[in-house]
């Protein structure tokens, strides 16, 4: 068909607009200047789960350290903290602010799975690269979307680790599970159950212990009757402390308890203040060493340099590994940075040793769960120890 001359101009304008629009999509430099990269850091800085914001503190300390080293290709990180209070609606507001008002280049962080699921569609639609650095629900990054990466062991990885550790204790047949009725607990408990099932073990009893509960007597008395070989406790730290104290109160200190990654070994001991109560408590531990171990010294020094008053716990390290990977991808993307180049470089991260995670990070376009396994930490002879399996220190 011949294009008549009267259509040439409008068609030409439309074609030019199309090319311009295409260019805008292909070279998305939102949140970038020659000297800065805007990074949105969402986390629960207030509310019941605010102790998780240590994860964001660790990550921000790392970005600040990179800034002090000159940044990446001359660009320094401008960190914008947004509180989610671990509530979906507040998280949506935070994500919308970062995307439409602050116009960040990328987002990194987020500690609560419910919030992450709530903001997922907003972030995906905006095209903002997002590294989920603490929330564990696997569906945040599965099925894969163009711009979402999981930079921490997701639920299945932690659940796999928890189940594997429980079943590595010889003769484990009778397992009791205690858990919160929320998304967070299910993220750990369901994959743990799935792993145990592959070994022919179903939980003898599943007991609910809700957030904010200040007494675990009912659960403990039922456990005393069941006489389990192992207890799996998918509880937040405050409730874990109550649960362990009540176990001790009723003389149950010889049954091992596998906690979820929402607790931290040293912090749990500090809160209870009695080694006898926690001597049989184990937690997934994604890092190369324990908090006081020599392997973590440089990370501890880094956090304390930028946040001098900070109390360091296992949560403090959770998001650092993915920050290390993000900085590597930014370096690889070169000085002419765009979101597309950054995402492409994140997908090229393979078997990447972050220097802090016990296992390496691998991302690809069809698998965004970067960390597939975790170690376990527990007390051996009263000292925090990182273990591969039951009685097997790393």
């Amino acid at each position, binding site marked *: 068909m011949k294009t008549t001359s009267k259509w040439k101009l409008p068609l030409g304008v439309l074609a030019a607009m199309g090319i311009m629009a295409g260019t805008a999509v292909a070279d998305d430099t939102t949140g970038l200047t020659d000297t800065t990269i805007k990074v949105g850091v969402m986390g629960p*800085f*207030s*509310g*019941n789960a*605010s102790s998780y*914001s240590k994860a964001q503190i660790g990550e921000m300390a790392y970005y600040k350290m990179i800034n002090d080293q000159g940044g990446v290709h001359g660009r320094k990180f401008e960190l914008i*903290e*947004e*509180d989610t*209070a*671990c*509530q*979906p*609606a*507040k998280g*949506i*507001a*935070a994500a*919308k*602010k970062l*995307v*439409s*008002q602050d116009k960040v280049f990328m987002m990194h962080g987020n500690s609560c*799975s*419910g919030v992450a*699921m*709530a903001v997922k*569609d907003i972030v995906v639609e905006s095209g903002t690269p997002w590294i989920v650095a603490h929330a564990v*629900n696997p*569906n945040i990054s599965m099925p894969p979307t163009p711009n979402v990466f999981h930079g921490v062991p997701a639920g299945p990885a932690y659940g796999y680790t928890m189940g594997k550790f429980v079943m590595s204790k010889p003769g484990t047949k009778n397992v009791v599970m205690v858990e919160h*009725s*929320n*998304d*967070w607990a*299910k*993220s750990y408990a369901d994959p743990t159950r799935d792993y145990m099932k592959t070994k022919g073990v179903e939980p003898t009893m599943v007991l609910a212990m809700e957030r*904010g509960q200040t007494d675990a007597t009912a659960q403990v008395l039922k456990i005393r009757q069941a006489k389990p070989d192992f207890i799996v406790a998918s509880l937040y730290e405050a409730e874990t402390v109550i649960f362990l104290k009540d176990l001790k109160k009723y003389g149950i200190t010889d049954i091992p308890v596998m906690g979820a990654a929402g607790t931290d070994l040293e912090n749990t001991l500090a809160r209870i203040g009695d080694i006898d109560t926690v001597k049989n408590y184990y937690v997934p531990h994604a890092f190369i060493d324990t908090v006081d171990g020599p392997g973590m010294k440089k990370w501890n020094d880094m956090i304390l340099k930028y946040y001098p008053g900070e109390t360091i716990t296992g949560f403090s390290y959770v998001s650092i590994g993915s920050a290390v990977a993000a900085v590597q991808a930014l370096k690889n993307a070169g000085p002419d940075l765009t979101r597309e180049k950054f995402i492409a470089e994140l997908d090229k991260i393979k078997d990447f040793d972050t220097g802090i995670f016990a296992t390496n990070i691998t991302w690809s376009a069809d698998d965004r769960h970067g960390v597939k396994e975790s170690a376990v930490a527990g007390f051996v002879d009263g000292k925090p120890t990182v273990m591969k399996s039951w009685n097997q220190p790393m």
Partner: protein
Amino acid sequence: MNQETPQKKRPLSQNGRIFYLVPLAAALIPFFANDYLQFIVNMIMVYVLVTVGFNLVIGNLGQLAFANTAFFGIGAYMTAILMTYAGFTYELALVGAAISGGLAGLLASVTALRGIRLYYLAIITLAFGELMRWVYIHAEPVTMGTDGLPLPDVTVFGMSMHSETAKFYVFLLITVLVVKGTSNLLKSRVGRAILAIRDNELTTASLGISTANYIILTFVWSGSVVGIAGAMFAASTERVFPESFGLTEVIVHFAMVMVGGAGSLIGSVIGGVVLTALPEYFRQFPGMEELFFGAIIIAVLLFLPKGLVSLLAKVSPLFRERYFRE
């Protein structure tokens, strides 16, 4: 000749003028608000209705019933379920949310009708909310449990509601209609009966007023209003989560009622606006929001026990309501 005097249309009171001027002014917001601010404004309207509904039971009827999060969650989930599984349009799902919220209100009123009052009623209705949260989590095949139930694309009369601006105009219309409807209810014979029950239930009954009917009506109206708010919340977040309807939410709703002014419709609007907007303003001080939020609630309740509306009522007669007890 019998000449009938044509009945003059009653002019709008100052209150009436304000009632229409505020939404008219608000209609300009999308012209200068970005997506984030627009979302906050939309959430303000959601919480205005939540507070209006809650205040009816707490402030106007005087019953210490905390089933509000149950109504809110039921409205939100019913919207998502009707749209997802029954293929309802948003308009129809909204009606479904209002009806299901009303039915939940009817259920909650049963406890009050059985003579359960004060702390006992508070505990039972709180338990209702927690029970519903348990259902949202465990009815996984329907609610998708803790992953949250996403809403299909929301359209109203064929118009997409994906943008915050589209939601805003629909929400504004709903909010105006519901607030006006509630205002009319409170100004009617029914409203006066409700207030009479609050002031002295026995005396009211001795006057031949069927207190049971009015208690049921108030709970049902409250449930419907909050159910509608739930439907708006679902459209706003586009995915409903059990976590959004927990105990903390009840505290926030209660604070909105108390800060705005218990028993005052204008107070409900003020409480909803102030306690939705302020935490967002305090967002710029990460980790300090709770402190500011708590301090404001304490200050208001300490110095203005009848809520912010009592302060405004002193400043201007515009904020004096006929049914507002001085």
